[in-house]
C-alpha cells in the first residue's frame, strides 16, 4: 500500500509522535507513514482540499481549527464505531469530525537557574514588585485574558461568562495593563523557551511540552501549574482523502491506550482517553497537565467563545497593543 | 546603377527628413553625399542599404525596385561610421562573415579573406580581435569585410569620422585607390568638405533633405548654384545686390552703394533676393591685372593665419568683406588704410536664394 500521509505540527511534538506512534504503526501494519509538517494554518488544509487533490490522509489539528473546519465541512465525518467508545474520552474532546489525542497546557514558566525566588502561582506573573523583570506572553488575546481574570480572582468556571461582558473584558485588559510595558510577546511556541534561555524575560507563559524539552537539552526551567489553561489536539481526516478507511484505521491505532500513552514518554502531553491515562508510566505522569495534582485550578480553553468573539476581541487587543 | 525616384522619408510623420530625392548613381563612380549634420545623408544611405523604408517614392537597384528586398538580399557592402565590427569574432571571422551566408567555406573562404586583408594591407592580423587593433586598422577591417563578397556597390557612412587628421588623409587615399583598382561603385557620406573635394568623382550637396547641387568637385567649388552651396564649401562673402542685365555672357549687378560689378551666373535671374558671392582667396590686391572688377576698400582688421593673412574689409558703403591673401602679399597692408582690390567676373557668382 502507499504510505499513509500524516501531517502534524513538527518540532518536538512530532518527534514524539514519530517515536510513539508512527514507527509503531509502520511496524505493526507494514504501511509506512510519510510525515509532513505545517504551522497549524487552516488555510493550508483548505487550499489542499480546494485544489481537488487531497494528498494528506490524516492531520493533527488544534481545537479552533477543528471547530472551524468541522463547521465548514472540510473534514470527513468520523465513524466512531471504528475508533472506540466515545465515553472513554474526556468531556469536550470528541467531535463529529475529530478524535481528541492529547491535552497540552499553557503554563507559567521560569528559569530556575536565574531566579533566586521562584514564582508559585499564576498571580506572580502580575506581581512586578516581588518578581521584577520582563514577562513573556503569547501574542494572542486567548489565554492572556483568561490568565488576567484568573489572576484577578475570578474563579475558573466564571471566566468566560465574565469575559463575555464588556465590564469583564475591560477588567481583563486593565489587569494586563499593569504589566503591559514589561511584556515581551512571543508568537511561535519555540520562542517562549528561547526567551527564557536568552534571559530576555524572567518568566513567560509557555506550552508545557516546550519547557519540558528545553529541560531535556540541559536547561533548568520551572513550571507553575497553578491556573494552567488546557487545550487539546485532534486527529482529523481532510475531505477527499484517498483512503478514508486507512485513515480511520490509523487514527484508531494512534489513540489506542498503549500507543497514546507512549507519547508522554517523549513529551509531556497528556492523553485525552481516560483508559490511556492508566498506561502512562508514573515518572512521566508527574509532568503531565492531566496529572491530578496539576489539575486542581486548571481552566479548559473555550474555543467556541473565541470563535464567536475572537474577531472583535482581537481587534481590541491589536489596538491595545499599539497604544 | 542606383536610382532614387521622388523619395521622401519621415520618422515622425511631421517633418520630412528627406524631402524629394532624385538621384542616379553611375556604375563605377565615387559619389559623395556631403552636407551638414541632420541633412538626411545617413537616412538616404540607410534607405539604400535597406535599413529604413522610404515613406514615399522608389529606389531602383540595377533597374529593380528594392522596397521589398531585405538588406541581407541586396548584396551591398556597407561600412558604418563606427565600423560595427563584431567584437566577439577575430578579424578573419569578421571578414569571413559574409562568405558564410553565400555558401563559401573552407579553403576558398580562407583564400578570399586573405586576399581582402591583403588588399587593405592587414596581412597577418587575422587572428586578432577588433579591440586589439588601432582605429585605422579597424577601419580597414570594416572595408575588407564590405568588399570580400565582391558587391557591386559599397556604401560608407562617414567611415573616417573617428580617425585623427593624419590617419584620415592617409585612409582617403587608400579608399580611393581600392575603389579605382576594383572599379566598385561607391556612395560615400561625409560632412567634411575637403574630404569630399579630395576623393569624389561627383558630389551631391545635401541640405534640409534636398540635394542642393550635384556635380564634380571643381564645378562645385567654382560655380556653386546657390548660396547654401557657396557658403558650405569654402569660405565666402555674400553681398546683396540688384540685377542690371547681362551682356556677352556676363551679368551686371549694382551693389548697395551703387558700385557696378561684372558677375557670372544665370542670364535672367527672376528673383529679387539676389546676392553676389565672393571667395576670400579670389580677392587680390589691385595689381592692374586683367580682373574685370576693381574696388576700393578700408582695412578694418588683419589677422595672421600662418601661410595667409586674413583681412577684414569695409567696402560698398558699409558691407563687411573678408579677403585672404598670401602672407607675403598681405604683409604691406595696414589696418586703417584704404586698399584697392580686384577680382574677376568668373569669381563673382550671382546667386539666388
Amino acid at each position: 500500500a502507499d504510505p499513509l500521509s500524516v501531517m502534524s505540527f513538527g518540532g518536538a511534538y512530532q518527534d514524539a509522535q514519530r517515536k510513539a506512534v508512527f514507527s509503531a504503526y509502520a511496524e505493526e501494519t507494514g504501511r509506512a507513514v510519510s510525515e509532513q509538517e505545517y504551522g497549524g494554518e487552516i488555510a493550508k488544509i483548505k487550499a489542499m482540499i480546494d485544489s481537488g487533490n487531497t494528498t494528506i490522509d490524516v492531520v493533527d489539528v488544534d481545537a479552533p481549527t477543528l471547530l472551524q473546519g468541522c463547521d465548514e465541512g472540510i473534514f470527513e465525518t468520523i465513524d466512531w464505531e471504528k475508533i472506540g467508545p466515545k465515553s472513554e474520552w474526556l468531556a469536550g474532546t470528541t467531535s463529529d469530525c475529530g478524535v481528541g489525542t492529547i491535552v497540552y497546557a499553557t503554563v507559567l514558566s521560569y528559569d530556575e537557574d536565574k531566579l533566586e525566588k521562584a514564582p508559585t502561582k499564576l498571580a506572580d506573573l502580575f506581581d512586578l514588585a516581588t518578581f521584577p523583570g520582563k514577562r513573556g506572553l503569547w501574542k494572542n488575546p486567548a489565554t492572556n485574558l483568561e490568565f488576567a481574570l484568573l489572576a484577578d480572582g475570578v474563579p475558573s468556571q466564571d471566566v468566560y461568562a465574565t469575559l463575555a461582558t464588556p465590564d469583564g473584558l475591560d477588567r481583563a485588559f486593565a489587569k494586563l495593563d499593569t504589566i503591559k510595558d514589561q511584556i515581551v510577546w512571543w508568537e511561535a511556541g519555540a520562542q517562549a523557551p528561547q526567551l527564557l534561555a536568552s534571559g530576555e524575560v524572567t518568566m513567560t507563559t509557555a506550552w508545557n511540552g516546550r519547557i519540558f524539552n528545553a529541560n531535556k537539552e540541559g536547561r533548568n526551567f520551572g513550571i507553575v501549574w497553578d491556573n494552567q489553561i488546557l487545550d487539546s489536539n485532534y486527529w482529523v481526516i481532510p475531505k477527499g482523502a484517498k483512503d478514508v478507511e486507512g485513515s480511520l484505521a490509523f487514527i484508531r491505532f494512534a489513540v489506542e491506550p498503549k500507543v497514546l500513552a507512549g507519547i508522554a514518554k517523549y513529551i509531556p502531553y497528556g492523553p485525552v482517553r481516560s483508559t490511556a491515562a492508566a498506561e502512562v508510566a508514573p515518572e512521566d505522569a508527574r509532568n503531565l497537565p492531566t496529572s491530578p495534582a496539576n489539575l486542581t485550578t486548571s481552566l479548559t480553553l473555550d474555543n467556541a467563545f473565541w470563535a464567536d468573539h475572537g474577531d472583535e476581541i482581537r481587534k481590541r487587543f491589536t489596538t491595545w497593543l499599539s497604544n | 546603377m542606383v536610382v532614387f525616384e521622388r523619395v521622401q522619408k519621415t520618422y515622425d510623420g511631421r517633418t520630412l527628413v528627406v524631402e524629394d530625392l532624385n538621384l542616379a548613381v553611375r556604375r563605377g563612380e565615387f559619389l559623395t553625399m556631403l552636407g551638414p549634420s541632420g541633412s538626411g545623408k545617413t537616412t538616404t544611405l540607410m534607405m539604400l542599404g535597406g535599413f529604413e523604408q522610404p515613406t514615399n517614392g522608389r529606389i531602383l537597384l540595377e533597374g529593380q525596385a528594392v522596397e521589398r528586398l531585405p538588406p541581407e538580399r541586396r548584396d551591398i557592402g556597407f561600412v558604418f561610421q563606427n565600423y560595427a565590427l563584431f567584437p566577439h569574432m577575430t578579424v578573419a571571422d569578421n571578414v569571413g562573415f559574409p562568405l558564410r551566408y553565400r555558401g563559401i567555406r573552407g579553403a576558398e573562404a580562407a583564400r578570399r579573406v586573405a586576399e581582402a586583408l591583403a588588399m587593405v594591407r592587414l596581412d597577418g592580423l587575422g587572428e586578432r580581435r577588433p579591440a586589439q587593433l588601432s582605429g585605422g586598422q579597424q577601419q580597414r577591417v570594416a572595408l575588407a569585410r564590405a568588399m570580400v563578397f565582391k558587391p557591386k556597390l559599397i556604401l560608407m557612412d562617414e567611415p573616417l569620422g573617428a580617425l585623427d587628421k593624419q590617419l584620415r588623409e592617409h585612409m582617403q587615399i587608400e579608399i580611393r585607390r581600392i575603389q579605382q583598382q576594383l572599379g566598385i561603385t561607391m556612395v560615400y557620406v561625409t560632412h567634411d568638405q575637403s574630404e569630399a573635394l579630395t576623393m569624389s568623382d561627383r558630389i551631391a550637396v545635401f541640405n534640409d533633405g534636398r540635394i542642393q547641387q550635384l556635380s564634380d568637385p571643381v564645378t562645385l567649388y567654382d560655380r556653386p548654384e546657390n548660396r547654401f552651396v557657396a557658403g558650405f564649401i569654402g569660405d565666402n562673402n555674400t553681398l546683396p545686390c540688384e540685377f542690371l542685365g547681362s551682356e556677352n555672357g556676363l551679368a551686371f549687378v549694382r551693389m548697395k552703394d551703387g558700385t557696378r560689378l561684372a558677375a557670372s551666373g544665370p542670364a535672367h535671374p527672376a528673383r529679387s533676393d539676389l546676392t553676389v558671392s565672393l571667395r576670400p582667396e579670389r580677392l587680390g590686391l589691385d595689381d592692374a591685372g586683367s580682373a574685370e572688377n576693381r574696388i576700393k576698400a578700408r582695412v578694418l582688421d588683419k589677422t595672421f593665419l600662418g601661410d595667409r593673412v586674413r583681412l577684414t574689409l569695409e567696402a560698398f558703403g558699409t558691407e563687411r568683406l573678408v579677403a585672404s591673401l598670401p602672407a607675403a602679399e598681405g604683409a604691406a597692408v595696414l589696418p586703417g588704410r584704404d586698399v584697392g582690390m580686384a577680382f574677376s567676373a568668373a569669381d563673382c557668382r550671382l546667386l539666388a536664394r
Partner: protein
Amino acid sequence: MWLPAYATRSERLCRLAVVLFAFAVLAFLIGPLFVVFPLSVSKDPFFTFPIREYSWRWYADFFQNARWMHSLVNSLVAAAASTLIATFLGTLAALGISRPGFPARKAVMALMISPMIMPVVIVAVGAYMFFGSLGLTNTRTGLVLAHAALAIPFVVVTVLSALSTYDSNLSRAGASLGAGPVSVFFAVTLPLILPGIVSGALLAFAVSFDEVIVALFLTGADQRTLPVQMFSGIRDQINPTIMAAASLLTTVSIALFVLLNLIRRVKRA
C-alpha cells in the same frame, strides 16, 4: 583621488570623518552576513552567545534530515524551472522593448517592472487564490509560475541594460553582409548580450531560490522549499540547523558572487 590636491585642512578632516563613516556603514552591511557562522557550530540548541561548546551536529542534521534535503532539492528544481521560463520570456521581451517603435513602451515597462515592487504578500495571496481555483496550489507548477513572474523583471532589466550598450549597427552590419534576422541574432546579438542574459538568469535564480512568502502560501508539504523550511524553523522550532543551512547558503552565494565578479573582471581585461 580621495582628496583633491587643493583641499584645505578642515576639508581634509571632514573628508577623513566621512571616509571612516562610510567604512563603518560597509561594515554594517557586511558584518551581519557572517554572524550565522559561529552559531552554526555551537552545540547549544538555542541562539545564545557566548558559545559554550562547538559541534558539527547541526550540519550533520541538515545533511541527514530528509526534510531539509527534500526542501533543498525542491528549491533547486523550482528555481531552475522558473529561471528557464523567466529568462526565455524576459529576454524575448527585452529584445522587443529595445526595438525602436515599440508601442506604449512606458506602460509596458511599468507593468513588466511591477512584480519587483509589488508587496510580495499581495502577489502571494493573489496567486494562492487564483491558482487555487485552477488546482495549482500545492503543486510545483503553481510555485514555478509565480516565481517566474517575480523573476521576469530582473531578466528584463538586465537584458535591457545589456542591449543598451549593444550597437544596433552591428545587426545592420550583419544584415548588410547577407545574414538574415535569425542568423544575425544567433551569430551577432546573442553572443554579445550573453553576459547580460546570464546575469539576468542568475538573478532570476536567486529570486526564486530566496523567495519565502509566495512559497509559504503556494507550497504544500511536498513542495516546501528551503526558505520555507528555514522560515518555519526560525518561527516555530528554534533549531540551529537553520544556522547551518544559513551558513551554507551564505557560503554558496558569496562564492557565486565572487565567481561572477571574477568572470566579469576577466572579460573586461
